[in-house]
């Protein structure tokens, strides 16, 4: 009796494996019939991706790589950095938690942006171990950035809404084209910082999502694919296009942000380390916020 039970159960087990083979392996959501059915639609995203990756993405990244360093050094040589007194009173701007979040994001960006460039110019580095390690670092740094996104959005979104100050700020490009120290119209964050926020936060989320799709490429992504009404392979192609184009924009703005904080405004980076900004810096570069703080008697 026992023999028959063993025989029967092993037969049943082999049946389930047959089922697994017939449905799992041979109708894969990526490689199965969906891929064959996607062939007639290849021209839509497949051809576009191939064309962009062959002709345009590397040119875009080349521009993104040199635009800010070149423009920054010209600005530094002609106009020079803004220097504010570091001996005066200080104004508390960023709490400890937000500094940690911001600096975790900064750390992850210091990995994400260079490794992204290494991958974009992988043939320059000859491929192999170095580029592969960069690819893996690019993936590992992503969760670090991901945990900082929501805290930063929640903490700062109210200060990041555009207002009339920002239009005036844009008209004079934040006063960075002159050496004069006259008050610039800006709240706690100026229009440049606001633009960076709106690119890095919603754009960052999009970068995480498209990057995750490409990381998990051959697992079953059909819930996401059906949500957008495309096949899984087209979903991956769209992700790659978005990730590359947005990557150029984010990398450019990141370099502007670093140039501003570390070079163009001497010592501005300390506000993200200690949490305090120089009073003179606030009075000039964030005059509206300074006025508000004065009215509230906080200065």
């Amino acid at each position, binding site marked *: 009796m026992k023999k028959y039970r063993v025989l029967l159960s092993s037969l049943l087990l082999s049946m389930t494996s047959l089922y697994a083979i017939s449905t799992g*392996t*041979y*109708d894969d959501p*990526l*490689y*199965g*019939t969906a*891929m*064959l*059915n*996607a*062939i007639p639609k*290849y021209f839509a995203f*497949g051809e576009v*991706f*191939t064309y962009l*990756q*062959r002709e345009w993405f590397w040119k875009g990244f080349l521009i993104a790589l040199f635009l800010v360093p070149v423009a920054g050094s010209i600005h530094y040589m002609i106009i020079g950095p803004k220097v504010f007194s570091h001996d005066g009173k200080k104004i508390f701007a960023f709490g400890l938690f937000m500094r940690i979040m911001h600096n975790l994001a900064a750390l992850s960006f210091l990995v994400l942006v260079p490794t992204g460039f290494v*991958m*974009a*110019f*992988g*043939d320059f*580095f*000859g*491929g*192999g171990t170095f*580029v*592969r390690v960069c*690819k*893996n670092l690019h*993936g*590992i740094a992503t969760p670090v950035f991901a945990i900082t996104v929501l805290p930063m959005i929640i903490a700062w979104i109210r200060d990041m809404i555009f207002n009339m100050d920002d239009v005036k700020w844009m008209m004079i490009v934040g006063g960075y084209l002159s050496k004069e120290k006259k008050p610039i119209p800006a709240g706690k964050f100026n229009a440049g910082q606001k633009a960076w926020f709106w690119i890095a936060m919603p754009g960052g989320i999009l970068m995480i999502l498209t990057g995750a799709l*490409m*990381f998990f*490429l*051959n697992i079953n992504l059909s819930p996401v694919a059906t949500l957008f009404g495309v096949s899984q*392979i087209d979903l*991956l*192609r769209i992700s*790659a296009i978005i990730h590359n184009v947005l990557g150029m924009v984010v990398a450019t703005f990141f370099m502007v942000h670093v140039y501003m904080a570390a070079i163009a405004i001497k010592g501005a980076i300390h506000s993200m380390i200690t949490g305090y900004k120089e009073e003179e810096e606030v009075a000039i570069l964030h005059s509206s916020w300074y006025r508000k703080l004065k009215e509230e008697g906080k200065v």
Partner: protein
Amino acid sequence: MENINSRLKFYCDADRCIECFACVVACQNAHELPVGIARRKVVTLNDGVEGKETSISIACMHCSDAPCSQVCPVDCFYIREDGIVLHDKEKCIGCGYCLYACPFGAPQFPKDGVFGAKGAMDKCTMCAGGPLETNSEIERHTYGQNRISEGKVPVCAAMCSTNALMIGTSEKVSELYRTRVLARGESKEANNSYLWNVAYNKQSRKGLTQ
């Protein structure tokens, strides 16, 4: 590449493919591929719909304008004189771009990196190995058998029980396929093969039973 018709090509005759998966099994076994890597796949469209069901064996098509080689960020692809598209696994970083560019889903990605990151891409080599020393142990281990260098037909086509899967120079393959299509009784001038008519032509089958 002076003559585009001298390039080696696969062609799967969908009228003959009986969905036996022999090519898939032969390929996986011959190259000792890890689980989850299918260099060659058999896909059935309209499964179970009478008169519409079609099966096709599909792998790398070794394209003349190989889009994979156009998008590779580390330029790991190279195209042999005979048209076989190969790649260098030591250069490959496993980014997946070749898969996005490929219309046929040929590139496969093993998960062997950190946290399930993708390892170097694997695809059909038309049983021609890779850039390493021909027929060396390391080439066999990395890319699978090199049957082309031994003058053998790729294992999938050699195994095909109905000869649905053809391989050869595009001239030869198209000539072979043209002969078959004509022999299927779609032209009265063609020399119809008796066996073919037994299998596909209703009248002959009736004749046989009489």
